[in-house]
């Protein structure tokens, strides 16, 4: 009993519990929507969404489908890391889709027009994303422009710019709105599989991108938790004024953070487009969902880079699962609906945790917890007064 109590107070476990609660509630609402559309198949549909690849019949098909999901998890994870990293520094990087677009644009252009090797394409994609991120950062640091609004604007600007650049003769397939397939355009730009595809029923889209993305997650976690750089960035995020007082270059830190976030999203784009999984459609008129789903993965992952790995897989899995349901009855966007409900519910995480802690302390009822000693009344007043 005592052990259990102790563990419930563990913040990591609390994060996992609240995330699970968000998932359950999100799925429940999704299920209700399915019921309202057509009660007959709703059970099967929600099962399909949840099981995704497991709903395939043969084991080979399952592995292949899992490969596809993993292939798309890699870019999603990168976008989520981008948002997670920036959020730790107090910035809401909703410009991730724009940075992702920039990465796709330059990555594909370098591959198809300049015939460069995949490593270089990857780096260029990261740089492109970093530049777009840095623009938001500079606007925030020097012109006080809210990064959310500049991010959204840049998402649209980059969408049209990417469409324009990738419509060029050297990169676009003249017969379709898509860019030329890398298989035929430049095989050297495809991220190598290094034998990983063999594990997934020869799914060619399973590449080094997947382990690389996980490595990035670990790297981001290390930077944030263990390094001087992470110490500075988090201090800036928690309290910009204190960071300035301590001699940190808070403006520079804002720009660097969004540039790193941009680089992550940019590389994320090449983790999709340089695997040959799909081509860029130059006529698309909406910002790719990838960046926005990253928000869901970030918050569902408890704002922890490692948690983000699992959350990204979950979000991608239900998105793919959504594509498998009976489309003549149910819209596949039901998955988007579920993930956006999950994001919305993530807004209540603090409240959930508060409720949980209140419940725990009520149950314990013993002497007052030393941690909970309130700041004296005078102090609370002051805090309220100066924001």
């Amino acid at each position, binding site marked *: 009993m005592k052990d259990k109590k102790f563990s419930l107070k563990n913040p990591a476990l609390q994060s996992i519990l609240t995330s699970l609660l968000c998932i359950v509630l999100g799925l429940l609402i999704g299920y209700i929507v399915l019921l309202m559309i057509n009660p007959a198949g709703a059970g099967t549909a929600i099962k399909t969404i949840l099981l995704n690849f497991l709903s395939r019949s043969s084991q080979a098909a399952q592995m292949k489908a899992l490969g596809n999901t993993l292939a798309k998890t890699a870019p999603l994870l990168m976008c989520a890391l981008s948002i997670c990293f920036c959020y730790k520094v107090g910035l809401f990087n909703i410009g991730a889709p724009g940075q992702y677009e920039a990465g796709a644009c330059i990555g594909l252009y370098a591959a198809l027009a300049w015939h460069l090797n995949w490593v270089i394409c990857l780096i260029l994609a990261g740089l492109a994303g970093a530049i777009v991120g840095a623009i938001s950062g500079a606007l925030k640091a020097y012109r006080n422009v809210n990064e959310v609004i500049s991010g959204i604007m840049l998402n649209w600007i980059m969408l049209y710019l990417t469409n324009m650049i990738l419509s060029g003769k050297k990169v676009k397939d003249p017969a379709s709105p898509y860019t030329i397939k890398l298989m035929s355009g430049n095989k050297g730009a495809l991220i190598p599989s290094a034998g990983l595809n063999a594990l997934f029923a020869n799914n060619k889209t399973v590449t080094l991108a997947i382990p690389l993305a996980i490595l990035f997650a670990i790297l981001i976690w290390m930077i944030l938790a263990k390094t001087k750089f992470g110490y500075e960035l988090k201090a800036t995020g*928690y309290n910009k*004024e204190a960071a300035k007082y301590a001699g940190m270059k808070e403006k520079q830190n804002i720009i660097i953070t969004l540039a790193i976030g941009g680089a992550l999203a940019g590389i994320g784009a090449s983790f999709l487009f340089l695997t040959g999984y799909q081509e860029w459609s130059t006529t698309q008129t909406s910002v790719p969902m990838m960046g926005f789903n990253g928000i869901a993965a970030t918050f569902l992952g408890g704002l922890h880079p490692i948690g983000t790995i699992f959350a990204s897989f979950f979000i991608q899995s239900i998105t793919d699962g959504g594509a498998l349901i009976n489309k003549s009855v149910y819209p596949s966007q039901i998955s988007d609906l579920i993930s956006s409900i999950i994001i919305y519910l993530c807004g209540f995480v603090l409240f959930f945790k508060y409720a949980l802690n209140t419940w725990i302390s009520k149950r314990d009822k013993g002497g007052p917890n030393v941690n909970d000693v*309130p700041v004296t009344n005078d102090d609370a007043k002051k805090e309220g007064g100066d924001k």
Partner: protein
Amino acid sequence: MDAPYAIEMVNITKRFPGIIANDNITLQLRRGEIHALLGENGAGKSTLMSVLFGLYQAEEGVIKKDGKEVKINNPNDANDLGIGMVHQHFKLVQCFTVLENIILGVESTKGGVLQMDEARAKVKALSEKYGLHVDPDAKIEDITVGMQQRTEILKMLFRDNEILIFDEPTAVLTPQEIEELMEIMNNLRAEGKSILFITHKLNEIKAVADRVTVLRRGKYIGTVDVATTSKEEMSRMMVGRDVNMVVDKEPAKPGDVILKVENMTVASKMHSNNAVKNVSFEVHKGEIVCIAGIDGNGQTEFVYGLTGMEPLVDGKITLCGKDITKDSIRQRSKLLSHIPEDRHKHGLVLDYPLEYNMVLQRYYQPEFTSGAGFLKRKEIREYSEKLEAAYDVRSGQGPITIARAMSGGNQQKAIIAREIDKDHQLLVAVQPTRGLDVGAIEGVHKNLIAERDNGRAVLLISLELEEVMNVPDRILVMYEGEIVGELDPKKTTVEELGLYMAGAKRNVDIDANTPEVEESEVIDTAAARKEEK
């Protein structure tokens, strides 16, 4: 039945987790008296007033109005009972006019349209009657703190409140403005209003109050008549022992010049004038120099300019013989330690654990960061433990306590420990005792004097007259961004200091052509432009 008390709070008890904020407190306010509520920070005055205002509900005890028991569940109930309050931090909307602020919440409308003329007439009449002069159509952000306070008083009178509460109303005023306020309070009493005056300043109680109730650490100590009780007795009731008002220290032995400021000018964020104008002075090794002044006369900007948080418009700063005018904050911090004015805004990263806050100025040094850029967690922990022990910083879980969960006094101790322990020649301490209780204040003053005796230069920026008179070896008075006086604390009086702080007197001529400020002007513009937090 004609009860003698306008309001009574009987046997009030209010608990918070781990603390009894009010322990069986009784407060009885007679009709038409000025009743002082005396106590240190944390004595429970604020909590008691919050109970009276319905912000908190007391667990035990009753509130009576004119002898009848009443329930006060929220501020509206309090308003309905005719209770009004001037809060310590004014509850005014900066971008509204005085009139708009006064009518807010009790607006009269005709067909949905605000009727301002009627209200304006009533406000003008009230201003006349009580001598509360303020322009009803001026915006709050453009008027002085004194006028803002008058707006708050008008707000209560406009609502025909009978019971007026003043929560530490003099903290932000010049001595002259304080005198005017006392006059106003006397007028209000003469008109039959009952006044509750919360303060920890004995002189003011002596000046206006009829009776005083004293609280200490959440407990009721007693209610006495002011006329028959000496200041010393009241002081003893407040702190529970004889307070040693004089700080123990040896005479200073000033050495070489450490800090030299020449013609420093810093821009203001609030208005187009410069906040600091042409300031020059020196601080020597082994002395404490205090910059005194009313809040908002350029002290904050001066410190920003000195520590590198704001660029200078003009001037030169020399620290230990080195020109640091263009140096970054970090470069300056090698020689300069800075205890900031606002510990929550600047001094701490509240969401970081204590140990991370302890190295906030030093985290990048090889002692705490390896060559590869990784933090040395073990060294940070040990260092934090060392400082906690040396400076008696108390917290729930030691180094891993989140700073936010610590008490204000311990937060401040942590900052002082950090700043004093790091290498420095000059310590800039800005209001280092703000919001601390008497015991903690004494400790801070000892720290400052030890610094001095260890051969450092100390620059203290303070608003508290007692501190200004007792701690430093030299006083510089800042008024409207200028140094207007240099005084010897041993030879000057509080009254004289007040005149300098209000700009009515100066003994440092920066520009011989500047005409002497006329006294009548002084009163209105003093304490102008209180810094918006």
